[in-house]
C-alpha cells in the first residue's frame, strides 16, 4: 500500500533520495533548493542513509565533485537553483559529454539580475543545450515520481546521460501537498543497484576520463551524445510504463489535458498547469468551448513529433514561456513548439506569451483571457504579435 503523506516538493525529493540511498552528494546551499541538502544531511546525521555528503565551497565545486564521484563509480547527485546552476554551467557540459548518469535536483528560480529568489525557468532553459535530460513537474507528487524515475533513465546502457529533475521554486518546493509515497522496498527494487561497467575505481580495469579531443574526434562525441538523447526517448517511456505498473500513475513526454476535441490549446511547463487546468474546466463547464492544455514533462529530449501530433487538430495555440531568451521574438518553448508544428504542417495559428518571470502570479482569469484570445485568433487568423505578456505593467 502506498504511504499517504503531506510533504513539500523539497521534502518529497529529499525523501526520494533517502529511499534511493545514493553514494555521494556534494552540495552548496541556495534558495529555494537549500532544504534538500539539509534534509539529506539530517538523514546522514541520524544514520538513516549511508550517503557521503561533501560540503563543497561552491556550486561549481558541487558539480565538479559530483562528476568526480560518478566517474569513480558512485551513484552521485546534487541539488541547486538559479545562480547556483549558472555557476555550474561549464560542468553541466562536462557531465554530459563524459556520459555520467548524474541526477540534479533543480528547484527552478529566476537568474539574476536583478536578484530574485522566485520561480521561473531561466536557469534550466539556459541549460537546455548542455546535453542533460530535463524532466519538469507540476506538483509535489510529480517531482517525487520523476525523481524515482531519474536514475533508471540516466543509468540505462543506451542513455548514460545526466538528468535534471525540475520543480518550480517555492510554488512546488515549499508548498505542502498531499502525496502518495512508494514503499522503500519497492523503490529499491524499481531503481535497482548501480552497476557501472567502466569507472575509475574498477578492480581490474584502468580508465581515463576527460580527454583533449582535437577536431578529428570532437564532432563524433557530439553525435554520440545526440544518439543517446534519441535513445532516451524510448527509455523514458519504458521507465514510465514500469512506474505505472508499480503505482498506477501514468507519465509520458507531456500530459494532454482535455485535448481530445480541443480547438484552442495552451502549451506550458510546470506548476502553472494546475491553474490552467482549473481554467480549462471552468470554461468547458460554463461555456462548452473546446479548450485544452498540453503540459510538457520532458523538454530534453524534445518530443517534437509527438507534440505536433497532439496539436494536429487544434486551430489556435498559445505557448507560454516562463523565461526569456531575448531573441526579440519567441521564448525557448515558443520557438521549439512553433518549429515542431511548422515541420508537421500543423494548421493552427500560434502565439507566444511570457508569464510568471521572477515568480509573478498567474491566475485562472489570466488563463481565461488567453483562451479568449485564442478563440478570436482561430476565427480571424490574424496574428498581430509574435509574443505577448501576461500580468506585465506596461508604461
Amino acid at each position: 500500500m502506498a504511504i499517504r503523506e503531506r510533504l513539500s516538493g523539497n521534502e518529497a525529493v529529499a525523501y526520494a533520495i533517502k529511499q534511493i540511498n545514493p553514494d555521494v552528494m556534494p552540495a552548496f546551499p541556495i534558495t529555494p533548493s537549500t532544504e534538500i541538502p539539509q534534509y539529506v544531511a539530517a538523514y546522514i546525521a541520524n544514520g538513516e542513509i549511508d550517503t557521503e555528503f561533501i560540503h563543497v565551497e561552491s556550486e561549481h565545486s558541487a558539480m565538479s565533485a559530483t562528476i568526480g564521484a560518478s566517474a569513480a563509480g558512485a551513484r552521485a547527485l546534487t541539488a541547486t537553483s538559479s545562480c547556483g546552476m549558472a555557476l555550474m554551467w561549464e560542468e553541466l557540459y562536462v557531465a554530459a559529454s563524459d556520459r555520467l548518469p548524474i541526477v540534479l535536483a533543480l528547484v527552478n528560480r529566476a537568474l539574476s539580475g536583478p536578484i530574485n529568489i522566485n520561480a521561473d525557468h531561466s536557469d534550466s532553459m539556459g541549460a537546455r543545450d548542455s546535453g542533460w535530460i530535463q524532466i519538469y513537474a507540476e506538483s509535489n507528487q510529480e517531482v517525487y515520481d520523476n525523481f524515482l524515475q531519474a536514475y533508471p533513465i540516466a543509468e540505462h546502457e543506451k542513455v548514460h546521460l545526466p538528468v535534471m529533475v525540475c520543480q518550480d521554486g517555492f510554488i512546488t518546493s515549499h508548498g505542502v501537498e498531499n502525496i502518495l509515497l512508494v514503499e522503500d522496498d519497492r523503490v529499491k527494487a524499481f531503481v535497482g543497484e548501480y552497476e557501472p561497467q567502466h569507472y575509475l575505481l574498477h578492480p581490474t580495469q584502468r580508465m581515463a576520463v576527460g580527454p583533449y579531443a582535437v577536431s578529428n574526434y570532437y564532432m563524433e562525441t557530439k553525435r554520440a551524445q545526440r544518439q543517446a538523447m534519441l535513445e532516451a526517448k524510448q527509455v523514458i517511456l519504458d521507465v514510465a510504463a514500469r512506474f505505472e505498473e508499480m503505482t498506477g500513475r501514468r507519465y509520458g513526454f507531456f500530459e494532454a489535458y482535455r485535448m481530445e476535441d480541443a480547438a484552442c490549446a495552451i502549451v506550458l511547463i510546470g506548476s502553472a498547469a494546475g491553474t490552467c487546468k482549473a481554467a480549462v474546466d471552468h470554461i468547458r463547464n460554463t461555456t462548452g468551448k473546446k479548450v485544452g492544455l498540453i503540459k510538457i514533462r520532458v523538454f530534453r529530449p524534445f518530443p517534437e513529433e509527438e507534440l505536433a501530433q497532439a496539436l494536429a487538430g487544434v486551430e489556435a495555440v498559445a505557448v507560454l514561456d516562463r523565461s526569456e531568451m531575448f531573441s526579440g521574438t519567441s521564448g525557448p518553448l515558443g520557438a521549439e513548439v512553433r518549429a515542431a508544428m511548422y515541420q508537421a504542417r500543423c494548421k493552427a495559428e500560434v502565439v507566444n506569451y511570457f508569464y510568471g518571470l521572477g515568480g509573478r502570479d498567474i491566475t485562472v482569469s489570466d488563463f481565461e483571457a488567453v483562451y479568449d484570445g485564442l478563440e478570436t485568433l482561430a476565427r480571424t487568423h490574424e496574428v498581430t504579435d509574435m509574443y505577448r505578456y501576461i500580468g506585465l505593467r506596461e508604461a
Partner: protein
Amino acid sequence: MENTYDFKKVMSKPERLAPGHRMCAGCGGTITVRTVLRALEEDDRAVIGNATGCLEVSSFMYPYTAYEDSYIHNAFENAGATLSGVETAYRVLKKKGKLTEDFKFITFGGDGGTYDIGFQSLSGAMERGHDMVYVCYDNGAYMNTGTQRSSATPQYADTTTTPVGRVSNGKVQVRKDLAAIIAEHYVPYVGQSTFTANFKDLYTKARKAIYTPGAAFLNVLSPCPRGWGYEPAEMMDICKMAVETCYWPLFEVIDGKWILSYAPRHKLPIEEFLKSQKRFKHLFQKGNEELIACFQAEVDKRWDALCSRCE
C-alpha cells in the same frame, strides 16, 4: 618508510607516465609528475587527477593516454573538487562493501590552475581533509596559453601580459606564497620542493605526502623552457640556483610544525638564479641595478621569515 634514498633503485621503478606524450623537451612539469608517481609503492593503485593545462592537453589526447593509472581531467579550476568527489566515492564504496582494493589519490595542476583559477576549489578540498595529494607544478605563469603572468610569477618577469617595454620592467607585483597559505589550512602535510640532489628531496616529500593520511599539498618549482627562456640542459642548474639563492626554499610543514629541509652554507646572490633566464634579461641592463636589489631584498625578507618560522 625507508630513510635511505637509493637513486638507482628509485629510478629503475617502472614509469607510470608513459613516454610518447607531447610535453616539451626540458619541461619541468613532466619531471615533477614522474618523480611524484615514482614515490608510489609499485603495487599501489592510484587515481590521478589533472587540471587543464599543458600537462593535460599533452598527456591525454584522445584516444591516447600516457597514464598507467586511472586518470581524470575535468576542467581548469576544479582539480581539487574533482578529486574530492573521486576520493569520497572511494570511501563510500568501501563502506558499502562494493570495493576491496586500496587506492591513492594524486592530482596535478599548474600554477594557473592552482594559485589562481583553482584556488577556491583547492582550498575547499584541503579544508575538508580529503585523503589526497594536490601537486602544483609551479612554472610561474600560464604557460599553456603562452606565458601570461600568474600570481606565482616572480616580480619583474617578462611575460606576454606583463611585457618589458619602454615604461615597463615586467611584472609589478611579488609572487603569492601558496605553500604557506595551504599550511595555514592546518593540513597534515605541506612540502615545497624542486629538482635537486638526484631528486631526493622531491621523492622523499612525495612519499610523505602520499602516505600521510589526510590532505597534503606539494608545491614544486618546475621550470618551463619556453616561458623562462633557457636551454633544456640548463634546467637542473636553474633549480639548484633557485635553492642556493633562497629564491625557492625547500621546507615542510608537518602538522603545523615548520621544518627547513635545506639551508645553503653560503646563500648565493639572486643574480645566480636570474642570469640564465631570458625572462629576466632586462634586469641586467645598465641602469636596472636597483631592480635586482629590490628582488634580492624580497628574497631576503621571505627567507628570514621562513627561518624564523622554522626555529
